[in-house]
């Protein structure tokens, strides 16, 4: 039976399950750059990002995805960063975004 089209769809539940331990690779990234924990997902980084104009890269979203354990997509998107540092200049929380993205791309490599 074809699925009925209601004009909208349901996304899977994306609430964080805090009782589930973090993946080891996520822990490695957080350990190497602890300031990621300060991110409050305000989105300033994404507002100034040039790579974000051409690709789905948005740092604050990567942080959320990192907490959710979606390492595949985080590693893949972090590869697009040019490290220019505009995001870090506007970040109100002082996250070392450049280092965080370097680490995400290095420690969470997408499977070929």
């Amino acid at each position, binding site marked *: 039976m074809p699925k009925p089209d209601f004009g909208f769809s349901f996304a899977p539940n994306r609430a964080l399950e805090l009782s589930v331990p973090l993946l080891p690779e996520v822990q490695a990234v957080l350990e190497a750059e602890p300031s990621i924990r300060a991110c409050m997902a305000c989105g300033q980084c994404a507002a100034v990002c040039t790579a974000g104009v051409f690709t789905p890269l948005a740092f604050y979203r990567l942080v959320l995805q990192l907490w959710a354990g979606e390492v595949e997509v985080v590693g893949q998107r972090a590869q697009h960063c040019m490290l220019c540092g505009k995001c870090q200049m506007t970040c109100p929380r002082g996250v070392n975004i*450049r*280092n965080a993205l370097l680490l995400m791309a290095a420690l969470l490599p997408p499977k070929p």
Partner: protein
Amino acid sequence: MEKSAWFVWPFMLGFMFALAVLLLRYLWWLRSLLRRPSSRLLSRMFSKHSLLAVREIFSEGLLHLRIYKRNRRLGFMHMSLALGWFMMIVGGKFETWFHSGQFLHGTWYAVFFRYFEPQTVGGWAGTFWLHYMDFGLLLVLTGLALAIVKRIRKKVLGIHSTTRHTLVNRVALTFLWMIFPLRLVAEALTFGQHGGGGFLTGALGRCCFTSGTLAGLELPFWWAYSLSLGAFFVVLPFSRYLHIPTEMVLILLRHWGLQAAEDLQPEKALQAFEIHACSSCGLCLDVCPAIKDHPFQSAYFLRALRSGKGWESLASTCLSCGACEEACPINLGLEKLRMAARGKIHEKHHAVYSYLPTVGPVETSKVDVLLFTGCMGRLKPATTKALKDLFEEAGLSWVHLDEQESICCGRPLALAGRASEASALREHNRSLIKGQQARMLVTTCPICLKQFRDDYRLELPVYHHSEVLWSCLSSGSLKREKGTACFSYHDPCELGRKSTCYQAPRELLQSCGTLLSLEREQADALCCGNSLGSLSLSLSERQALTSRTLKVLEVPGAQSIVTSCPLCQHNLARQSSLPVKDLAEVLAVTGLPEQQGQRKAALAAVQEL
């Protein structure tokens, strides 16, 4: 050899051990060169370059002229230790030659010459060598006294910080400090008992050691002297004193055209010599803007590279402001080394830039200036606007290359050690420039400036906007009148130390106001704290650096802080009580003749009311 002369053995064993280890290590470092010697190196070996190298070895290895220029007392300390020791080695050779008529002897003969030939006589020449050797010893002892003072009260020598040494270095230092006082006493004892001697050892012997009861002390002191020498030579190849021979080889290799590798190879070729030529003299400490917060200064960084432990965090926290490289007395390529270390840390990092938009063929119309404002320029549109107004006023036509979406120049990646990844970005920006007919490329960001100049190999000259504006002012196409504004100018690291552009911004500010002199400026300027060089310095540490820099900049009388880097401007403005502006903004609004007229008219109108 008589049984009583067996005391030379500790020295000889230590000396031979040090020589063997040095030879092995040097051969290991040079292994690739020995296998495939480059023709450039061989041709330079037998040319004037070798003579130039010898001159530099003399002026830096012995006289330490670069340290002397920076700090006379410290320079004298280093000079007296090195030159005095060198004088004694050379003098010892000549003295034994003169005395015995033979040039070649066992190494120990010259070192313990006084014990074997206390009654050296030989007319005026014999007396000359006696006094000459005493002078050398006195020079070393003066240096030693200064070194001890430096450990106790460093401010006497005009420095605020000294290197904290590891255990092996402290042991080596102790032996080194013991060598020369022991030699003095041993020689004085011998002269006291047998007569003779120069102005120092002879006089000391005659006044203190003539008593026959002290005769039994003579040999133990020679033993102690030999033991401390031997022990020093045993630890030398594993301590910072390895710099003594390594620095000389490094200078030679550099003059022969050898260059340090781009990737980290701490046990190979020139990089190995650079890492081991650092004497931990500590000149990089006082100039470091973060000396109070972090021990990542180059002396510690190189020491960590030598031991192979802990260099990762030191390399990635450092701001790469370039102050240590500027201060280094043996001109080590510290920034390059740091980039290499960062490259090693992030070697697993892989970037994908296939998304970059392709640039079609560019319409070619003749313009004066290609303007590239860079990533940071996008966050400071006021600067771009002011610069465009100034270009218009000066009659320069321009094309803004990255007005739509700016693609990074690649320097931030290079600063993170990933220069190889930046080629796609450079290619994109090159295609923007290619085909344009312009006289010059102008950038408002010193980071882009450095990258365009060093790595793009463009056919047209690249300038920072301060240089272009200054040439407009001096040619008369821009006119400014000196106003009453007082500025303090912050030298950005990438524009100052990295691109040696100090004059143009200063001339510009002086043409439209008064420029205040600062405690630390030009090559000594502090970093704003927001350098892209540091990858992992935390926000609070950055803020501490910024407030220290602002203390220097907020001098009494300053009405505004001016800088010429969007990054510095942004960062200083966050914490400054004074307005922080870019040069272009200052020039666009101040000192305009008609604007001053307008302001005067407005003031008059207010006063009338």
